[in-house]
């Protein structure tokens, strides 16, 4: 594990006297009351701070949640998600915040901020209403037979022939060339498959984004299961209306019927990736442009 090193090397932890850990923002329009019965990260009691029709789901906190213990972080993540889920159940699609997002100050500060950003927030909430994030991972559990690939590709066929006739040293290089070409062909097939799927899903989703094919290393660290040698064809994230869920499932069923393909479909998640940027004039720590609460929004 590299956590020890990472902790030493990381930037200084921000400190604050009083803070509010923010799980998400919700629309209170048409709901009666702001009560939310749920337990937050580390068992903290969760409340809703409201300003008009916008509410922030928070708990009081005095420090950032930080640990080198991955298990603990997993629990925190799950708890964070549970609260956002409960908020979603009670108030409809929430505007979710990343794990460990803390608002400096007390309820009044949160309230003032909500008031100030109200227009943006209300617009964002109403635009996302009824929409959720879905994750799709297509995995090839049985690799395509090499001979099939060779037959379908003139270069590969040609290389195979040349290797047979070549002297040892040349054959070695041709073999390497062949392997590279094979990788290319596989990559192209993956790409084609992913493109077709994207197009089909786009009919049912408001947005479809392709993610890096491999899960980020840091997520891998959190993961308990070792990869079983299966090849990831693509990873997609979608923003779709809840009514489209069945249709999306149908498209994925068809993909799963292809030999050797497995589809891993999870959701509905709160639209973490698709939560819009807000907070005009905000500054990031590095003075970068606008921060967002989303994750991978492009």
């Amino acid at each position: 594990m590299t956590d020890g090193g990472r902790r030493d090397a990381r930037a200084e932890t921000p400190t604050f006297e009083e803070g509010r850990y923010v799980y998400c923002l919700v629309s209170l329009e048409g709901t009666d009351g702001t009560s939310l019965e749920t337990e937050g990260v580390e068992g903290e009691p969760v409340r809703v701070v409201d300003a008009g029709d916008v509410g922030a789901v928070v708990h009081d906190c005095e420090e950032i949640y930080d640990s080198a213990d991955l298990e603990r972080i997993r629990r925190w993540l799950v708890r964070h998600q549970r609260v956002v889920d409960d908020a979603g159940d009670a108030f409809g699609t929430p505007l979710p915040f990343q794990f460990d997002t803390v608002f400096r100050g007390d309820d009044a500060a949160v309230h003032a901020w909500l008031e100030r950003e109200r227009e943006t927030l209300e617009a964002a909430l109403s635009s996302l209403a009824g929409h959720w994030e879905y994750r799709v991972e297509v995995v090839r559990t049985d690799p395509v037979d090499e001979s099939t690939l060779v037959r379908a590709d003139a270069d590969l066929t040609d290389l195979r022939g040349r290797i047979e006739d070549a002297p040892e040293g040349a054959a070695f290089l041709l073999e390497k060339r062949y392997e590279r070409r094979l990788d290319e062909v596989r990559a192209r097939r993956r790409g084609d498959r992913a493109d077709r799927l994207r197009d089909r899903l786009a009919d049912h989703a408001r947005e479809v984004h392709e993610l890096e094919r491999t899960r980020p290393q840091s997520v891998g660290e959190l993961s308990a299961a070792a990869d079983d040698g299966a090849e990831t064809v693509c990873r997609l994230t979608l923003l779709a209306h809840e009514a489209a869920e069945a249709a999306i499932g149908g498209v994925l069923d068809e993909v799963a019927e292809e030999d050797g393909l497995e589809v891993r479909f999870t959701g509905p998640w709160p639209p973490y990736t698709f939560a819009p940027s807000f907070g005009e004039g905000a500054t990031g720590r590095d003075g970068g442009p606008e921060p967002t609460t989303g994750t991978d929004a492009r």
Partner: protein
Amino acid sequence: MFVIDDLLIRPFVGIVDALHTLALDELYDIEAIENDLKENQLLYELGERSEADYRERKEALETDLEIARDVHEELASGRVEVKR
């Protein structure tokens, strides 16, 4: 002035990434952890594993199992579909 103090502890990337991964993992992993527990017990009973090792491992595996069940319950139910 709206100040955001962002500091990266670890490059976690996205929370959905993490959740999606956890949800899928936990779907598969409970049985593997249970098997490891049984193996640990067996090797201890056969005298191949010392009591200290056995206890340490058992404790770690039990924590894993508890978390796996927790996560499974909270994330996996109805949210994960593996289509074959």
